């Protein structure tokens, strides 16, 4: 998971590439580099993130170039291993996102033929292979090289002898081509080019594109031309900026009232007691006769999936399994069963998560119906899916997912309602009430944001702890897991989420005065139980911070501090508690001085398995 960019046009390529790379550094930022072409092939690369390296980059002439920001997979983080990788004859420059699985054997072969290698990367074999096959036609040389290569890649390649084009290719890693006026772009993701154009081609697997300033020619590996429809992206450039906030993450946390509003806009009607999705056809008997759902996802999306299980099972009375895409290999036999009545729901923010894509591909091959929940229109996942429900939350740049989590929860809530309505497990009045409840959520999230001073204060008190636990029950259990994940990701504090009831089955042994516990409460069926759990924790002297609603005057008798949210229904209180956890993690990390938008070792879109 690296970010690649390319530019062909009439402006100075260097500054455009640097700006684009900055927009992609959520994909990796341990090293970066770029290459431009005029009379010479100019190359700059080094260890460090692009915004830091920027100052040390010398003048690089040329209106054609490629760039890269790296998240190391093969080879340690060092200047030599940064991209672009250059061929032995110093004519071919390559940037790559993905993993070349047979690079060792290819490298040995090339070395035997006299090629000498400078880096430890898998990518370097591409530049040498292209050099080997080069005979005056870069596209053809690339095509021949790719026939030797096994693995995944998004590639952008240029050659000193062809000063008017970049050759790009894709298999398994995302790649888009931006269409400008007398200029064209190559990029791993949309934000990189949004400043320049919102018209794009989505390259598909096993396609090669030759990109010149006035022309984009796409072929398959056999050289047959492929006609593609350009897509228009309705994100605005602004969505990818920080807009006065110190960090993207905080900006994105604050976008959540709007994001939830967007997620439900046009999908609900309170008086009609109906939920509809333009993307789904309610007359299709498949949905009303579903017997089983499997949700697959990773990370934060997986926690959203756990929430989805709860809500779908209770509203639509369909059994739901939630699986980590990373672990799905172990469960292949399950996928064979009951294909006609089973729906796979894959949740992936980027639509490019390699682990989730692998499951989607396998399930599709077996004939399963797949519904994807993704934030990126035209992503690989949505192109494989039978249906895609877009989150509509706009680009998310902060590595720690926040607003897309909120929109995933909102979308899952609506899907549960939708299925409940099709299957008659919910009455019209109930549906109307559920719709009314989600209608209130944007305002309630805004209220949580308006009260964030309390959360910030609490974060300040706890910034020096080294362990922290989050507990919750029923719909708030996934939020406890997500709260712990947020804290781990950006503040580097060791945090664990538990079901409140599970604490006494083991983790209790870890409780001391130095392990604060954040308890996410909702005042419904499980309130008494979580109160009991809290009292048990207090008996072990661990400090407890309770998140509960503003009307709860019981809780403060038992805990060290109370963070208050407005009262919401049991199904929707997770959306408010999640915002508290996000703000808490943010402020802890901010007090600790952590690089919030770029936590160490992480990248946003995980395009390797």
């Amino acid at each position, binding site marked *: 998971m690296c970010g690649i960019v390319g530019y062909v046009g009439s402006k100075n390529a260097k500054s455009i590439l640097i700006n684009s790379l900055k927009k992609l550094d959520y994909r990796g930022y341990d090293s970066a580099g770029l290459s431009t072409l005029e009379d010479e092939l100019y190359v700059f690369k080094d260890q460090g993130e692009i915004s830091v390296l920027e100052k040390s980059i010398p003048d690089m002439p040329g209106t054609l170039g490629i760039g890269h920001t790296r998240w190391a997979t093969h080879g340690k983080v060092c200047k030599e291993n940064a991209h672009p990788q250059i061929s032995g004859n110093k004519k071919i420059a390559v940037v790559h996102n993905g993993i070349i699985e047979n690079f060792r054997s290819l490298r040995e072969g090339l070395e035997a033929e006299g090629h000498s290698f400078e880096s430890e990367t898998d990518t370097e074999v591409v530049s040498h292979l292209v050099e080997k096959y080069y005979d005056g036609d870069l596209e053809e040389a690339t095509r021949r090289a790719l026939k030797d290569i096994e693995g995944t890649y998004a590639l952008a390649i240029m050659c000193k002898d062809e000063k008017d084009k970049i050759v790009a290719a894709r298999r398994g890693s995302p790649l888009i081509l931006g269409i400008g006026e007398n200029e064209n772009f190559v990029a791993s993701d949309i934000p990189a080019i949004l400043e320049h154009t919102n018209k794009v081609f989505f390259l598909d697997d096993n396609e090669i594109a030759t990109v010149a300033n006035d022309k984009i020619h796409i072929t398959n590996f056999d050289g047959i031309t492929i006609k593609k429809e350009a897509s228009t992206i309705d994100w605005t450039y602004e969505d990818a900026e920080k807009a*006065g906030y110190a960090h993207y993450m905080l900006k994105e946390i604050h976008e959540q009232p709007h994001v939830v509003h967007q997620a439900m806009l*046009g999908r609900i009607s309170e008086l009609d007691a109906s939920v509809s999705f333009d993307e789904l056809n309610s007359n299709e008997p498949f949905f009303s006769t579903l017997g089983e759902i499997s949700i697959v996802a990773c990370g934060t999306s997986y926690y959203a999936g756990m929430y989805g299980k709860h809500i779908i099972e209770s509203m639509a009375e369909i059994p739901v399994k939630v699986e980590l895409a990373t672990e799905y290999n172990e469960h292949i036999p399950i996928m064979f069963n009951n294909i006609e009545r089973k729906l796979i729901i894959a949740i992936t923010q980027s639509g490019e998560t390699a682990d989730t894509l692998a499951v989607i591909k396998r399930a599709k091959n077996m004939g399963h119906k797949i519904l994807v929940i993704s934030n990126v229109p035209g992503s690989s996942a949505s192109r494989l899916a039978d249906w895609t429900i877009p989150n509509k939350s706009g680009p998310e740049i902060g590595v720690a997912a926040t607003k897309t989590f909120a929109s995933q929860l909102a979308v899952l809530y609506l899907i549960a309602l939708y299925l409940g309505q099709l299957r008659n497990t919910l009455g019209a009045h109930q549906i109307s009430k559920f719709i009314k409840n989600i209608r209130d959520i944007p*305002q309630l999230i805004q209220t949580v944001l308006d009260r964030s001073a309390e959360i910030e204060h609490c974060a300040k008190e706890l910034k020096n702890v080294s362990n922290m636990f989050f507990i919750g029950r029923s719909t708030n259990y996934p939020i406890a897991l997500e709260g712990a994940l947020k804290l781990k990701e950006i503040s580097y504090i060791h945090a664990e989420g538990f079901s409140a009831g599970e604490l006494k089955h083991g983790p209790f042994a870890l409780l001391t005065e130095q392990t604060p516990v954040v308890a996410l409460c909702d005042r419904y069926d499980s309130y008494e139980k979580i109160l009991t759990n809290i009292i048990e924790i207090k008996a072990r002297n661990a400090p407890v911070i309770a998140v509960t609603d503003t009307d709860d005057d019981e809780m403060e008798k038992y805990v060290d501090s109370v963070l208050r949210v407005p009262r919401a229904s049991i199904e929707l209180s997770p959306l408010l508690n999640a915002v508290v956890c996000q703000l808490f993690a943010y402020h802890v990390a901010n007090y600790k001085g952590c690089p919030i938008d770029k936590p160490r070792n992480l990248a946003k879109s995980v395009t390797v398995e």
Partner: protein
Amino acid sequence: MRAIVLAAGEGSRLRPFTESMSKVMLPIANKPILEYVVDALTQSGIEDIVMVLGYRKERIMDYFGDGKNFGANIRYVFQEKQIGTGHALLQAKEELDDETIVLAGDNVIDAEILSSIVSHKGLALLYIKHDKPSKYGVVTIDGGLIKDICEKPKKDIGNLISTGIYKFSKNISNELEQIISQGSPKITNFIRHLLEDEKKIASVKGEGTWQDAVYPWDLLRLNEVTLQNCPSASAGKIERGAEIKGNVSIGKNSIIRSGSYIIGPVLIGEGCEIGPNACIFPATSIGNNVTIGAFSEIRNSIIMNNVHVGSRSSVFQSVIGEGSKLDTNFTSVVGDAYISLGKSDNFHEVKDIGCFIGENCKIGSGAVVDPGKIIGRNCKIDIQKRITKNVKSESIVV
């Protein structure tokens, strides 16, 4: 040319509406006041905008972002403590350019009023005639130059008031810094200082819109005036049997149900459900994600985002804050009222007025609110209560 917009203050006389967002973000015809300022600037060819923010700045940044959606390039600087307009400007002193328009973010203005000062070269102050000058900084003029400025004069010294719109240049920043360090944080102090220093400040007359909302009831007047330019457009759905007359604008994914009767000018935001059989009369603005129940009547009111108005309710000449829920049979009684905003405030005579309800209130079924009464934010009113006094924020009325 660059503009520096001062938008750090709360506008506390507009409480409870300013308790979670500042005055500049209060909606007039479904647009924050500050958006009128941004639009006036961009229409005058000024896209380079610096905003000085303080109180509830997140709401402003969330809305305007980097300004691209508004045809502007907006950057932000922050004033930690809101101690005065001059001090606010000082926070942006690095941003003062050779020619910079400095203006307040809390007046509804149009591009026309800016045209004379935009084209003027050198230090200048934009003034207008006003029929209630005593609330503002009154200027006296001599030979095209400002002679003096007097804040809220007790005596009648003329009817020309400062709009708070200035043309400054970067070479004033040292003097600004100096005068503020002497403990005079307002821009008018600074102007007087410049005059005492025999600096020439041109007086430029403004022609066009310059409107101010000082008190909650001013919002209604401003809304009514602004709605006169309300377009007629529908991106929503209008069921058969609903009658729409005059200029009515209906946002995306909103639905007007059968039997409803709407007479413009009326603005309805996105994702609203109106009716069936609801009546909405001039001049009313309804925000996003609002539901108006069956058989309710709304007249000359501002209904902000996420509000629910229950069935058989009457909302007249009133302002309902974000997220408030009015249960069935709510009544705002219209009449003349003497309103005081607090112990230190005088009584203001306001004619023909309904009520003011802050954000996130829950008003029980059958509640009746007397004319001119103000209910704070986050209040709960029990069923069938009659509200005859102002209700403080976070109160429960049982």
